[in-house]
């Protein structure tokens, strides 16, 4: 039995905005329960604007105004102990960062300080968590790390603008793995890259996970990447997790109507029928529909769907789904 390394309980994180006097609340993460294991790649998929990035920020304990933690908890398992992340001090959180859990942000193109060489950036990250090393020792560690992962050594002496977007992405990912963290959180690492470079990035992530045997939480709307890397996938919609299963199960047996649309929209060899995408557009997180947030776009919506939010049901095959169409113990579909 593998152990849980990160756990959330009814996590709620909203953005509270004040636009010229009126208050607007964006319900980006709305009662999310997650249990993520050691030594696995957990993918989170969903459309833009469903709250994925906010969820990651909450998991990383990087909640800053106007984002606010409204309710729920996030637990890390550090050295066989469960720690409630929100109970930590700012310094406590800072020390966990990078050593225990690291982050690869969305748009890694511009996350590197443009006026210092890459090796200096690596030094900054190392120095802030590891003490007692001289400058040369630190550079040695960085060099070793880079070459281990198969990246060319000379990039360390370069400035960010001298590298291509794909290379910068790989450098950022390597940086995230620098202190061998137990969890690496990656937000859309393959977006805005061409397919060839995407492969390089995905390969790098796989390599890192195999070496460190840690957990990678990977957010991407690209189901192809999920199929390639993830062990388990969670589908997010309008701030909620609507389905969760092993990658194989999600692709072969999607239960939630939204997941079904996602899977069916992917092209398949030999299948020449027109791909259908989800009708309508994602709901505004400020003005959510009542009951199940998907019901306005759901072709199978029942009356109860407009009134009550379905709770998550745990089916035996490690498959969770939150939909009124799926009853306890069954895995059939409504006609």
């Amino acid at each position, binding site marked *: 039995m593998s152990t849980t390394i990160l756990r959330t309980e009814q996590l709620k994180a909203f953005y509270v905005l*004040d636009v010229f006097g009126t208050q607007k609340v964006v319900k980006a993460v709305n009662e999310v329960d997650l249990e993520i294991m050691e030594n696995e790649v957990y993918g989170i998929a969903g459309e833009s604007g469903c709250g994925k990035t906010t969820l990651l920020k909450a998991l990383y304990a990087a909640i800053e105004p106007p984002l606010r933690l409204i309710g729920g908890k996030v637990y890390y398992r550090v050295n066989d102990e469960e720690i409630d992340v929100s109970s930590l001090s700012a310094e406590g959180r800072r020390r966990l960062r990078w050593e225990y859990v690291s982050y690869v942000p969305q748009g890694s193109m511009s996350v590197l300080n443009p006026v210092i060489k890459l090796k200096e950036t690596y030094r900054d990250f190392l120095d802030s968590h590891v003490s007692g090393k001289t400058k040369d020792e630190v550079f040695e560690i960085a060099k070793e790390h880079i070459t281990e992962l198969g990246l060319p050594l000379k990039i360390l002496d370069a400035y960010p603008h001298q590298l291509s977007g794909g290379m910068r992405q790989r450098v950022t990912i390597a940086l995230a793995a620098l202190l061998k963290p137990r969890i690496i959180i990656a937000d859309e690492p393959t977006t805005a890259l061409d397919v060839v470079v995407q492969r390089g990035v995905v390969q790098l992530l796989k390599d890192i996970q195999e070496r460190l045997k840690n957990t990678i939480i990977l957010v991407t709307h690209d189901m192809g990447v999920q199929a390639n890397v993830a062990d388990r996938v969670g589908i997010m919609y309008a701030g909620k997790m609507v389905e969760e299963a092993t990658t194989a199960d999600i692709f072969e047996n999607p239960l939630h109507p939204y997941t079904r649309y996602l899977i069916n929209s992917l092209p398949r060899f030999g299948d020449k029928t027109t791909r259908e995408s989800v009708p309508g557009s994602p709901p505004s997180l400020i003005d959510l529909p009542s009951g199940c947030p998907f019901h306005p776009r759901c072709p199978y919506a029942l009356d109860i769907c407009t009134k009550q939010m379905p709770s998550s049901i745990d089916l035996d095959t490690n498959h969770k789904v939150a939909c009124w169409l799926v009853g306890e113990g069954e895995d059939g579909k409504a006609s």
Partner: protein
Amino acid sequence: MSVLRDLFKDYRFALSFCVLCMLLALALLTIFSPHDPTFWGVVPRDLKPSRDNLLGTNSKGQDVFWQATFAVRNSLIISVIAGTVSRVVAVLVGMVAGYKGRGTDRALMFISDSLLVIPLFLIIVMLAMLVRDMMNLVTLGLLLAFFGWAWDARVIRSLILSLREREFTQTAVLSGTGTLQLVLKEYMPFATPLVFSTLINNMAWAIGMEMTLAILGLVNMDIPTLGTMLQWAISYQAILLGYWWWILTPIILAILLFVALYWLSVSISEYLDPRTRIQRVGAQ
């Protein structure tokens, strides 16, 4: 309008708007002035402020209050002329440079940058000496306008550059809209708010410049403006003689005018810039 209402929520806009209204009212009072502002000796000299003379009288035998109304009016007139003419030039130069690009753009921007870099003050001084005899409100305004367009031209040019890439430009061009019409009708709505906020800044600069030229004696000293009022006070040794009402009136009015114009332009440009508008929103 909801725009005005939103603007008024910014204390800087609200305050400066009120101050400017007061000053405008002051300028409009000139219609009721019992004295001709260029005449000397219409009232007894050097009197302290009293009920008859709200701000006292000066050594030339003029009522300081009524002088002040004309001073504010004339300074505003100069600044409006300087500001509007230089806006027109800035818009023309910016639009042509932005739209035509390449050679024309480089040449125009070179001239504009040179104007920004050289010590304008000295050039203005030289030119002012040239037209010294013909100096009046209009010529001074035009002289100042000649130098005030450079910064704004660049701003407008970058706006045009970005608009040029937008889809609606392609649509307009393909449907046969002439260049002039395209620029005037389609781009103007984007440029107007920008132009407005820089207009206010430019007006403040013009008033300041006028006052500086006044101590150098390069303006027509018979026309009452904030600058000439101050200069007369200084040359009549008002400080040493303790005629504080004569010295302080133009200074305080000028400071009110500058700060109000500046706060107005800052609050408007912050309102227009979506980034700063969102910065005002948020953390609580």
